[in-house]
């Protein structure tokens, strides 16, 4: 069963491996993939997704997979303006968020200051990270769409009656393996370290770690939060298949598309296409959430030599858990006393 699913996801991943919208290797024709001392393609360094492309295609671009040159130039100018505004201490609409006057708190509470933005975001031709299905939208099942709507509505509202009610990120656990390579508002850096037979990825936020054997071995039998990843080299590309994920669908997730279930399978493809760029392609299949597999494609940028990953000992300072549980209890008290 699992093998059949992998073959299917692998096939979809392969079919979705087309020409990238953004891939522009420098000095084309002369560049060769750097290699480790033992001969594998070298992916090592600290990496971060720095693009300004939304995961799903906005309605305004329905039916369009790519931007025009004018739109790219326009968007690039706006991104640069917003980055400068952010550095100047501006918030709200000036940095691409909701207007503060329209929404002083919601959407502006943990504003850009609270997040690790890194360098200004880059604009690419594609209108969504999702490249398959071709409409650029996540193919939720009707049930998952309802769950997503419910999750969005309860964020910050509750009920918060137990430590199980906040989402997995608020509990300092994880946001799941699906978005790890390209998200992390409090720490989106990923450090890749290789040794003979292994590729290790350290994600700054939550300090998620993945130790991936790349000798083509088989999956184990232990289910884990981040699943069980096995890799292999296909030419210059590292292909990582992940399965054996624990079912945590009964937990709250910041976004339903990142949730973990026993039927979740992921195929990732890492191809270094320039000194400073990895072409990253992820195909996600999970009948518990999606009606069909979906694929996202994006460039991941190498950060300058010496960029460090910092510790993210989230539980150490997770006062928020106590705060939101006591806040949850204070709310009914306040409502009762006002009656």
């Amino acid at each position, binding site marked *: 069963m699992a093998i059949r699913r992998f073959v299917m996801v692998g096939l979809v991943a392969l079919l979705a491996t087309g020409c990238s919208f953004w891939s522009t290797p420098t000095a084309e024709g002369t560049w060769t993939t750097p290699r480790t001392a033992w001969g594998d393609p070298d992916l090592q360094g600290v990496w971060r997704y720095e693009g300004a*492309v*939304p*995961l*799903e295609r*906005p309605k*305004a671009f329905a039916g369009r997979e790519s*931007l025009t040159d004018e739109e790219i130039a*326009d*968007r690039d*100018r*706006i991104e640069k*303006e917003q980055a400068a505004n952010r550095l*100047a*201490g*501006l918030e*709200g*609409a000036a940095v*691409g968020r909701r*207007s*503060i*006057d329209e929404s*002083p*708190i*919601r959407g*502006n*509470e*943990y*504003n850009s*200051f*609270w*997040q*690790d933005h*890194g360098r200004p975001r880059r604009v690419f031709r594609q209108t969504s990270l999702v490249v398959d299905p071709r409409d650029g939208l996540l193919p939720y099942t009707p049930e998952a769409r309802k769950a997503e709507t419910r999750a*969005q509505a309860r*964020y*910050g509202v509750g009920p918060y009656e137990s430590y199980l009610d*906040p989402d997995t990120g*608020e509990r300092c656990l994880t946001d799941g393996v699906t*978005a790890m390579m390209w*998200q992390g508002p*409090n*720490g989106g850096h990923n450090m890749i370290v290789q040794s003979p037979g292994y590729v290790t990825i350290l994600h*700054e936020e939550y300090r998620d770690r993945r130790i991936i054997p790349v000798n083509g071995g088989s999956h184990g039998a232990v289910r884990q939060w981040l699943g069980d990843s096995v890799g292999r080299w296909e030419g210059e590309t590292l292909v990582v298949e992940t399965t054996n994920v624990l079912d945590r669908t009964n937990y709250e997730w*910041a*976004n339903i598309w990142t949730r973990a279930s026993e039927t979740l399978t992921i195929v990732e493809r890492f191809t270094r296409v320039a000194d400073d760029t990895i072409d990253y392609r992820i195909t996600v299949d999970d009948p518990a959430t999606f009606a069909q597999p979906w694929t996202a494609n994006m460039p991941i940028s190498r950060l300058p030599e010496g960029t460090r990953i910092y*510790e*993210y*000992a*989230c539980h150490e*300072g*997770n*006062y*928020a858990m106590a*705060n*939101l549980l*006591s*806040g*949850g*209890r*204070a709310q009914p008290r306040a409502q009762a006393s006002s009656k």
Partner: protein
Amino acid sequence: MRRTAMNHEDTKRTRSKKALRGLRRVVLASVGIGLAAAPLHAHHAFAAEFDANRPIKLRGTVVKMEWINPHTWIHIEVKQPNGRVEAWAIEGGPPNALFRRGFSRNSLPTGIEIVVEGFQAKDGSRRANGRDVTFGDGKRLFLGSSGTGAPRDGLDPTERR
């Protein structure tokens, strides 16, 4: 209520001006292509912990700063008019984000007096989500958003635009 209340009248007076300013910003940001951000919450949920209707402004002395994840916490002592000293804890941005913005261990030394603006915890305890910190010499350290309803005082960069 023991907290030092903000001047709500000031807030009301500036609201219409801010609305105009905000509109200008919306128009500016909407020019070209509005590529909305991917749906992702920045943990944690403000509304679950703090009360947007309880803005506070505290003058106090720094006792310590906790450089911990997922958020830093500044501990201050606030002297009340009756001489009693209250301990407050103020939430700030995550350490890695602050550090990459140039904050250091020396940015908020123990013993200095600061003014903190923010929003109090929903449970009424002496904890708050920090917005801005102002030093004795008027220098300002932005812990969070400007323009969340705080009175205009000319120090906010958004007011100089």
